[in-house]
């Protein structure tokens, strides 16, 4: 029997068939269908199996709240689990797979779980699977993990792209139903910039389906006119397929736009994440209908009454041909009328209310439909679909029940406003006895940076239930928000009447006195298989807070995050505790409203542009010359340059040997360079560095150490005095921004009356270290300035020209060799580098990377920030007392270094270490002390801080921190290896190469 009705379907195009597959079965739908409506049209009753019991499940809803119809969509690089069939627009070639059934939906082997359902009440897994201990990890857990969840993980890398947009608006209005449109219209007229977003592909929301009339015409007319008007307003931006996802502090909001989900082959990004700053946010997010709790309410064919109406009106699809309506309110009578108008049968309306006398009910009766009041569904009959219901009295235990044959059930338990966005940033709720729902409490709204209310609700989201009230409320919200954003706005709502409806009657269990057998078949959370009996058990066992109940039963923790189950569940909990619902309260609503793709959150930042890349002027040269990269902050530095056939180790050793023997060039551009200038610059640097910088003479350089206020070494580098008022401070590569910030901190927040200015010129200068015995010769080949020992002595600097390029040369050495560090305007650095190389050919010049740099400094016993220091090391530990001024009253860190733990003679101190056999000590190894400490850990007396094979010395060298180390020269101590073995090493001076410093000072 076809479920597509002969006519109707305001959203589908009957002339445009669309082919798709479900579980590899070919099916046909219409343009404008959702996957859900197309499946229903094809008579696909079962669309999934439930999580725990593998019960057959059908489509329950028509919107994002759908808990059952989650499918695996697409294939390969476009496969995606857990797509809601109800919000998936149908396109040609769509392929969907059901998720939790094996071998098939119709026959699922795991459905045997249902037989054991009574063994699997809430939290059963906390009470069992305890013994034997090893079984959890190896047997129980793998089985449970395999059984849990339903979506399959994607196997291939996503081929789509994503992007971020930023928007700054006066008003963000979320929800494009009549409330959102009305709010936008009112606010738009004030001149405020408005962004109106709607999650679906269509405007107008439920009103056209519900037969609302506005300004005396069908709602659709008003909707279209309003859209036209809004379209002409330059200050109003409209987006469909764009969901308000989250509201954060200070007016920050996320909107999630699905650009090509409905047309995967289209050009451009798949999703766009809008990061919006709004002065005011209006949530016109409508309401979600609640299911009713009766036994078998989860069978395929039981559907929300509003969803039944949606499928008939929007898509011309009949979920069933004979539909029983069960309700506690008037709205479901609209479904009855819709079905009758479509020529479908409604055998009975089952209404829990004792008396119903409202226009809607009278109209249904007038059409010849039996209305049973004070009645309830005792249970639904059927195995894989609805075959009938048992009718009973609403109070009592249900008794035997009277059968009514039907193939579908439309249920309505009342409506809950969508309060998620209101709640994300702290908006509070209040309970309405009249409508048995929580709605936003305008007196406890989310507040923004100024303490002002910044989220307002409009329409049903406020709890306003009739069309007229909705429009009034929405217009008022739009006007209030516009005024709060600084505009003059007046509320002017479209005219509409509120339908006359009889009061609803909250009912949480059907029938009221249902016995456990029925209660254990009443589903609250359909996807997680949480039943009325589970929540009652949680209360019985003392999990009384709503948060505990949720966590114990998993109520509301599935993909729909409780959109359907929340109120029903806490009503059951309140009933069990004998408390009022508002006292029990709700769980916290967290962003996002509906799940959003990780791809969209990551945005464009993938692969090479994952993070910004800082490049030195020589970057491309490195790339072309075999650089093996090392990330250093956002920089990338060559670790070494591999020549064809060379391993990394071989390359490093060659670079060291060549440099020591003749000539090496290092791109030192990443080194931090800070200009510190002003009459108080010397005084300032005296505070920042442990040694005295104010006594440095212009033209000279001095190595300096910086500590934090805890006394720990934080950075080091060479300071050059440029003139009386000006210093150039070098920092480590990773430290430039941090140290610049540090200097600014002290200058702005502590010594703000000192006359000093700091500029970070790191990227303005390229810097090239020319290193090795032939360094001077190669500079002389280029010519332009006197680089002799007399003109430019060790630890001096000079301005001049090299091969026509303006340079500043520092005679400093981090390798122990004759060394010139040449600073050059960044734009000319590459050219100079090339010239140096050309001139260096005759000396066999090599470029060297960071590892050769490290080895050469270690051979010289120079410390490296981050190697010898780790944030707990003070300069005194490193034997750097010579760089700590005794004459200064104060420097940053001095007071801290006077604390008892810092002055202890037992602190580990820097030494050199040599293995007895010349091998390389394992980096990071600890020196063994005697015995264990009170916690059973081996006592240690030191550790290796750097360890290399020295090509210069042909053996392993290491530096380390050892207790009483400098007093123990020549002693052999043992280091632990990770395999439990030990290795011996002799304590030696940390300076392995050229201890008298003759080579650098030539």
């Amino acid at each position, binding site marked *: 029997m076809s479920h597509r009705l002969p006519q109707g379907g305001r959203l589908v195009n009957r002339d445009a068939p669309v082919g798709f597959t479900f579980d590899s079965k070919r099916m046909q739908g219409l343009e404008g269908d959702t996957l859900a409506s197309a499946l229903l049209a094809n008579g696909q009753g079962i669309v999934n199996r439930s999580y725990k019991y593998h019960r057959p499940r059908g489509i329950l809803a028509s919107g994002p709240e759908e808990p059952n119809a989650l499918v695996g969509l697409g294939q390969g690089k476009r496969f995606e689990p857990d797509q809601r069939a109800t919000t998936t627009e149908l396109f040609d070639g769509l392929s969907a797979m059901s998720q939790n059934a094996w071998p098939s939906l119709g026959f699922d082997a795991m459905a045997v779980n249902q037989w054991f359902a009574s063994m699997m009440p809430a939290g059963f897994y906390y009470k069992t699977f305890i013994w034997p201990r090893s079984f959890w990890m190896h047997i129980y857990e793998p089985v449970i993990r395999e059984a849990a969840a339903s979506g399959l*993980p994607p196997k291939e890398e996503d081929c789509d792209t994503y992007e971020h947009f930023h928007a700054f608006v006066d008003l963000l209005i979320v929800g494009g139903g009549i409330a959102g449109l009305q709010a936008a219209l009112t606010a738009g007229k004030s001149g405020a910039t408005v962004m109106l977003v709607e999650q679906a592909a269509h405007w107008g929301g439920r009103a056209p389906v519900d037969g609302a009339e506005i300004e005396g015409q069908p709602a659709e007319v008003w909707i279209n006119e309003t859209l036209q008007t809004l379209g002409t307003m330059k200050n109003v931006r409209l987006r469909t397929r764009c969901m308000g996802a989250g509201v954060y502090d200070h007016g920050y909001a*996320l909107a999630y736009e699905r650009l090509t989900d409905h047309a995967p082959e289209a050009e451009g990004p798949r999703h766009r994440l809008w*990061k919006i700053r709004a002065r005011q946010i209006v949530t016109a997010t409508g309401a979600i209908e609640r299911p009713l709790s009766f036994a078998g309410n989860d069978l395929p064919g039981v559907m929300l009454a509003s969803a039944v109406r949606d499928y008939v009106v929007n898509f011309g699809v009949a979920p069933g041909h004979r539909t029983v309506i069960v309700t506690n309110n008037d709205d479901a009578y609209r479904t009855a009328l819709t079905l009758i108008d479509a020529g479908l049968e409604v055998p009975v309306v089952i209404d829990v209310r004792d008396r119903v006398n409202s226009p809607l009910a009278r109209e249904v009766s007038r059409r010849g439909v039996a209305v049973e009041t004070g009645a309830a569904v005792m249970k639904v009959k059927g195995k894989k679909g609805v075959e009938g219901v048992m009718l009973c009295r609403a109070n009592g235990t249900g008794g035997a029940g009277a059968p009514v044959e039907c193939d579908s059930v439309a249920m309505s338990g009342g409506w809950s406003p969508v309060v998620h966005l209101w709640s994300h940033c702290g908006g509070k709720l209040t309970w309405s006895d009249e409508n048995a729902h929580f709605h936003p409490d305008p007196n406890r709204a989310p507040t923004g940076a100024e303490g002002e209310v910044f989220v307002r609700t409009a329409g049903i989201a406020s709890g306003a239930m009739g069309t007229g009230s909705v429009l009034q409320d929405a217009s008022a919200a739009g006007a209030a928000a516009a005024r709060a954003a600084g505009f003059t706005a007046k509320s002017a709502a479209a005219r509409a009447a509120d339908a006359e409806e009889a009061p609803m009657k909250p009912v949480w269990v059907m029938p009221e006195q249902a016995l456990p057998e029925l209660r254990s078949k009443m589903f609250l959370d359909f996807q997680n298989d949480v039943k009325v009996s589970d929540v009652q058990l949680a209360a019985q066992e003392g999990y009384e807070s709503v948060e505990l109940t949720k966590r114990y039963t998993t109520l509301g923790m599935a993909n729909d995050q409780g959109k359907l189950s929340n109120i029903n569940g806490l009503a059951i909990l309140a009933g069990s505790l004998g408390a009022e619902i508002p006292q029990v309260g709700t769980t916290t609503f967290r962003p996002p409203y509906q799940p959003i793709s990780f791809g969209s959150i990551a*945005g464009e930042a993938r692969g090479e542009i994952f993070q910004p890349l800082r490049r030195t002027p020589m970057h491309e040269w490195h790339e072309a010359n075999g650089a093996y990269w090392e990330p250093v902050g956002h920089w990338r530095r060559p670790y070494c340059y591999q020549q064809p056939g060379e391993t990394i180790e071989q390359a490093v050793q060659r670079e060291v040997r060549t440099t020591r023997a003749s000539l090496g060039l290092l791109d030192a551009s990443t080194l931090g360079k800070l200009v510190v200038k002003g009459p108080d610059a010397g005084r300032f640097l005296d505070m920042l560095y442990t040694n005295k910088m104010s006594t440095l003479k212009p033209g000279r350089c001095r190595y300096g150490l910086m500590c934090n206020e805890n006394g720990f070494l934080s950075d080091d580098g060479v300071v050059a005095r440029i003139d009386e008022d000006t210093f150039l401070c070098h920092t480590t590569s990773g430290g430039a921004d941090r140290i610049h910030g540090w200097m600014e901190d002290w200058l702005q927040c502590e010594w703000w009356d000192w006359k000093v200015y700091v500029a970070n010129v790191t990227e303005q200068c390229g810097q090239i270290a020319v290193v090795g015995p032939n360094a001077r010769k190669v500079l002389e080949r280029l010519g332009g300035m006197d680089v002799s020992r007399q003109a430019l002595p060790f630890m001096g600097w000079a301005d001049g020209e090299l091969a026509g390029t303006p340079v500043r040369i520092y005679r400093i050495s981090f390798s122990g060799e004759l060394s010139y560090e040449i600073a050059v305007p960044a734009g000319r650095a590459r050219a100079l580098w090339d010239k140096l190389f050309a001139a260096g050919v005759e000396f066999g010049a090599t470029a060297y990377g960071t590892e050769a740099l490290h080895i050469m400094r270690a051979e010289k016993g120079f410390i490296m920030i981050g190697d010898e220091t780790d944030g707990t090391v003070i300069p005194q530990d490193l034997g750097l007392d010579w760089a700590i001024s005794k004459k200064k009253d104060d420097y940053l860190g001095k007071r801290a270094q006077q604390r008892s733990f810092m002055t202890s003679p037992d602190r580990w101190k820097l030494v050199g270490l040599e293995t007895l056999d010349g091998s390389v000590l394992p980096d990071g190894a600890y020196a063994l002390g005697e015995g264990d400490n009170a916690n059973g850990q081996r006592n240690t007396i030191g550790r290796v801080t750097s360890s290399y094979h020295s090509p210069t010395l042909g053996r392993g060298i290491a530096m380390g921190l050892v207790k009483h180390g400098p007093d123990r020269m020549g002693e052999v101590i043992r280091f632990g290896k990770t395999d439990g073995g030990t290795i011996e090493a002799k304590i030696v001076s940390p300076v392995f190469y050229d201890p008298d410093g003759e080579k650098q000072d030539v």
Partner: protein
Amino acid sequence: MRRYSAFAIAREALRHHTGWNRAWRSRDPKKHYKVIVIGAGGHGLATAYYLGKNYGIRDIAVLEKGWLGGGNTGRNTTIIRSNYLQDPSAAIYEKSRSLYETFSQDVNYNAMFSPRGVLMLAQTHHEVRGYQRTAHANALQGVETEFVGPERVKEIVPIINIDGPRYPVLGALWQPRGGTARHDAVAWGYARACSGMGMDIIQKCEVTGVRSDGGTVTGVTTTKGDIACDKLAIVVAGHSGHLAGMAGFRLPIESVALQALVSEPIKPCMDCVVMANTVHGYMSQSDKGEMVIGGGADGYNNYTQRGSFHHVEETVRALVETFPMISRLKMMRQWGGIVDMTGDRSPIISKTPLGNTFINCGWGTGGFKSIPGSGWAMAELVAKGEPGPLAAEFGLDRFREGRFIDESVAAGVAH
């Protein structure tokens, strides 16, 4: 207290589970207790549990202003590991991890401790050296870890991309017996066991003042009246500063928001925990199938239990880069917890200036993994009045002396 077992469930199934008792008793406070523990989170309950189990002290009330386990115990990413660098940290976290191994059997409540392994990725050479150092330290501390190469990383976590263009994986510190547990169940299991020993767990009971006489605590005032005690243990994480204020002392603590998020659940695709500190993200898969992701902490004081989206963005970006297959998964829920950060980012288990009053706080981002060890050490401190070896280094006095326990010195900063 009736034992939980499969047989008990089968028996109850026959009568529709109407025979289950409360997991913990509910009652109004007595006038006096030997020990009052403020805070019924994991740490507070564990303190009470080990006071009872190890020292036979059962005249205990655990006071909770909200609901049991409602703070960070139920808001974290459930990672359990002990591959710390510094001896005091490694000792207490390893004690904790080993207690987790037998937790379910000890308290007869399945907390699903799953020693599935923790991988901490090294993506810079600096990190490689840092983790090699940690591996050396762990070998001497009795913590089983190993530095593994990128191929082994790929073997352990097939969904990882080890060849990312910006931060290729150079290796990892692997702790095979690290893992995860079901966080709520840890609190519930302890609560049930404490109740079984006769202790009172009193929820919705907010402490509004600390009473003392001559520099020694005498009791607390609460929203459920005055309660006297001989000893007081303050174990309230993010609210420690607030409680310390009532007790008349200050703490080196700042409270900030730390964020976490989960994806929609999917079938198993990742069997261990992966932490990537260079790019700031970590991820595991819960038994329910959600990818559980930890994000960054705000750098400013914040009590709102929500945080800024840019941290989520940074974390997810890092993880999409590390695990490209998650791009088409969806974030289902994000939330924040308030963590208490000390001056050296290590915890405080200490005597206080007020006599017979003890504090346990400052676990920062490392709270969940330390619950049993922290409770064990705190119980010893409360029972004996002096710290045992596990707590000895975590005293408040260390800040004055400059005796830091700084874990950020290893490459891995996040907990």
